[in-house]
């Protein structure tokens, strides 16, 4: 996963910070120098890094040390917070027009992944009940139109094309076509271009003026280096972007470009591309990403425990729900998301009677891909289904599998595991006996 190396680096740095008691300014400087190196190695733009370090230093050297934290932990907390802020705070959604059709334009450099992302987005929207239309406006790259058509066929989404005609005319005609064919989302795939190619940038401006898109998405390769800021700045200045899609995050790129691009444009990263397959598009979670950067280690959870009374409140609620047998798939998903974020599940379970001593929890092995699949499945369920899993029969299972890009067997397994987990947790909260069977639950995370 991207950010893993960075996470490791930062974690190492933080480990050094911890347990040193009071931090002198020199200690802070020393740690921040390492943070700086880690960020640069992750391809975060140089200026962005500089700003970041400055901001953290200003805050760290100032007062506000919480009584419950050591100064070292306080610095970590600030690094984490600033990183989260830099990544964009909360998760941003796609801008859909209240008056359909919504017009979406995909733009970016050559080879960033626009065509693939356009199709993934169409597939995602289709699975949410929309009627998307894709538009082949890359008239330059050989076989680009054919590529979109092939993908359209694969995901069963219509593709509008007019051969090698003027892209502005294509876009206009496509919107009219979409309106008469009651397509509620129109996704325009434009040709890759350099941000310094004036003529081609002007072409994008003309398309924008002709069809007034509700959303212009800049597609950025997560392997991009220092130049990411120039690219994003130029596209944003000409087009006023709505958001950013970060692609190829399934590689080992540390993805510093994500931080850079967000910092210079102020525009949110809305999606992350995580595979070559059509289901490889995910929402982008800035907080999760920031937490990953800092690592899920003991330092962060310590800080969280010390500062987040709110989470304890949540944990108590959960314990109550378990006792009352109201634990739903929604809670389950909520737990998984928190687990992915930080790993407080062990803390939460630790607060349940009889669970404090369960050793396996300490080395809970969280398989990211597995979590993603579970998340996708639950996300494809209706609210009713999540609250009342027993209504999920054969045809619903099939639909959920399709919607989440998984197989029916996956859905079956998840439902079974959920049921086991629920039973197990209920037993655990009710009696000590259940502990013997606790293996069943943890296999879920392997």
């Amino acid at each position, binding site marked *: 996963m991207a950010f893993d190396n960075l996470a490791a680096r930062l974690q190492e740095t933080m480990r050094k910070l911890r347990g040193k008691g009071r931090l002198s300014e020199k200690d802070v400087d020393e740690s921040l120098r390492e943070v700086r190196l880690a960020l640069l190695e992750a391809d975060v733009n140089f200026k962005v890094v500089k700003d970041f370090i400055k901001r953290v230093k200003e805050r760290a050297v100032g007062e506000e040390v919480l009584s419950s934290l050591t100064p070292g932990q306080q610095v970590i907390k600030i690094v984490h917070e600033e990183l989260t802020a830099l990544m964009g705070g909360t998760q941003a959604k796609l801008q859909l027009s209240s008056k359909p059709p919504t017009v979406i334009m995909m733009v970016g450099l050559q080879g960033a992944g626009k065509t693939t992302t356009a199709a993934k987005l169409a597939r995602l929207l289709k699975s949410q009940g929309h009627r998307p239309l894709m538009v082949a406006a890359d008239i330059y790259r050989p*076989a680009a139109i054919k590529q979109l058509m092939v993908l359209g066929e694969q995901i069963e989404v219509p593709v509008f094309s007019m051969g090698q005609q003027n892209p502005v005319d294509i876009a206009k005609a496509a919107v009219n076509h979409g309106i008469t064919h009651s397509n509620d989302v129109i996704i325009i795939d434009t040709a890759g271009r350099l941000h310094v190619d004036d003529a081609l940038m002007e072409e994008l401006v003309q398309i924008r003026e002709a069809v007034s898109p509700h959303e212009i998405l800049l597609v950025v390769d997560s392997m991009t280096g220092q130049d990411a800021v120039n690219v994003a700045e130029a596209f944003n200045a000409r087009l006023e972007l709505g958001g950013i899609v970060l692609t190829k995050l399934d590689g080992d790129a540390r993805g510093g470009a994500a931080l850079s691009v967000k910092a210079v444009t102020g525009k949110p990263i809305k999606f992350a591309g995580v595979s070559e397959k059509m289901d490889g598009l995910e929402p982008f979670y800035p907080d999760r990403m920031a937490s990953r950067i800092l690592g899920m280690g003991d330092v962060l959870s310590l800080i969280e425990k010390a500062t987040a009374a709110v989470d304890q409140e949540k944990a108590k609620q959960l314990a109550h729900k378990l006792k009352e047998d109201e634990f739903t798939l929604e809670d389950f998903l909520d737990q998984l998301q928190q687990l992915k974020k930080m790993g407080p599940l062990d803390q939460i379970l630790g607060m349940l009677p009889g669970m404090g001593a369960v050793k396996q929890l300490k080395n809970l092995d969280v398989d990211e891909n597995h979590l993603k699949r579970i998340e996708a499945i639950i996300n494809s369920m209706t609210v009713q289904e999540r609250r009342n899993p027993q209504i999920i029969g054969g045809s619903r299972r099939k639909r959920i599998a399709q919607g989440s890009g998984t197989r029916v067997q996956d859905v079956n397994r998840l439902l079974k595991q959920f049921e086991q987990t629920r039973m197990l947790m209920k037993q655990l909260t009710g009696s000590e006996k259940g502990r013997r069977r606790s293996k069943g639950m943890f296999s879920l995370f392997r």
Partner: protein
Amino acid sequence: MFWKNIFKKKDTAPTESLEQSTVDEPQAKEEAETSQSLFQRLKMGLSKTRKGFVDRMEQLVSGRKVDEELFEELEELLIQADCGVPTAMELVDRLRERAKGERITEGDEIKRLLRQEITAMLESHAQSLKESTASPYVIMVVGVNGAGKTTTIGKLAYRFKQEGAKVLLAAGDTFRAAAIDQLKAWADRVGVAFISHQEGADPAAVAYDAVNAARARGSDVLILDTAGRLQTKTNLMAELGKVHRVVQRELGRDVDEILLVVDATTGQNALSQGRMFSEAVPITGIVLTKLDGTAKGGIVLALGNELNLPVKLIGVGEKYTDLRDFNAAEFAKALFD
């Protein structure tokens, strides 16, 4: 021009210099006419790179005395050019030493030193395509998704054809939608032969057929496209290894060139690409594409310095005339002149 050497045994089609060349195909003629000389294009392509770098460099050094702050700022400049921290530090350490040894106190002097050091570093890794009289001369083109592999193959095919070689392109990307059509379009445009299987076919089978077809047809050059893949996907890297083994076996000798295509916009991940692709197949050189953008291409320095991978060719545009052999002196000159 190194191409000449590769085909010096040939007495057909006298090799024209690329600057004034035209080809038979109408499309090709059109493109060749509209494009200026390759050198001009390169200079144009690099001018943006040069401008950004030199301007800031000029700003940085002129009228200043040499001190630690200056060195640190130079290091920052190099990092901003994607040289990577270790290589930037190494270069600036050398500058520090030389400034001390040669008692240099003026900022402007430092500029000359840095140019020397960069040239030296680039020169130690500059190489052209291997010369070979074996036939067919086989090139495999590999890299991550969207790096510019297929386009580079179109450009290579054009150059070999200009040299009078009989070229065969093989569509080894059977995975990406319309990748086969894309390569076919290049083959048609340039006017060279083309071989493919269906989408979804085994790329090793394509490679097998390609080598044998090249032999049967008496092709001088065979260029094999491969699907873009992220270097962390072990199964896809293993697949690449298999394709390579098949080519090698059918050929009965080493593949002449295995070129890793790297997008100049790429940051430090290019090092991971260099490392892991080298583990899967014996990479013989790098093609650095998209140098016509504003990316500084400093990754060239890191790739050579840290991985010993020679850069052989650079891409400076989307036309098939937009390919140059990498020349360290020229590159450094274009950066600083």
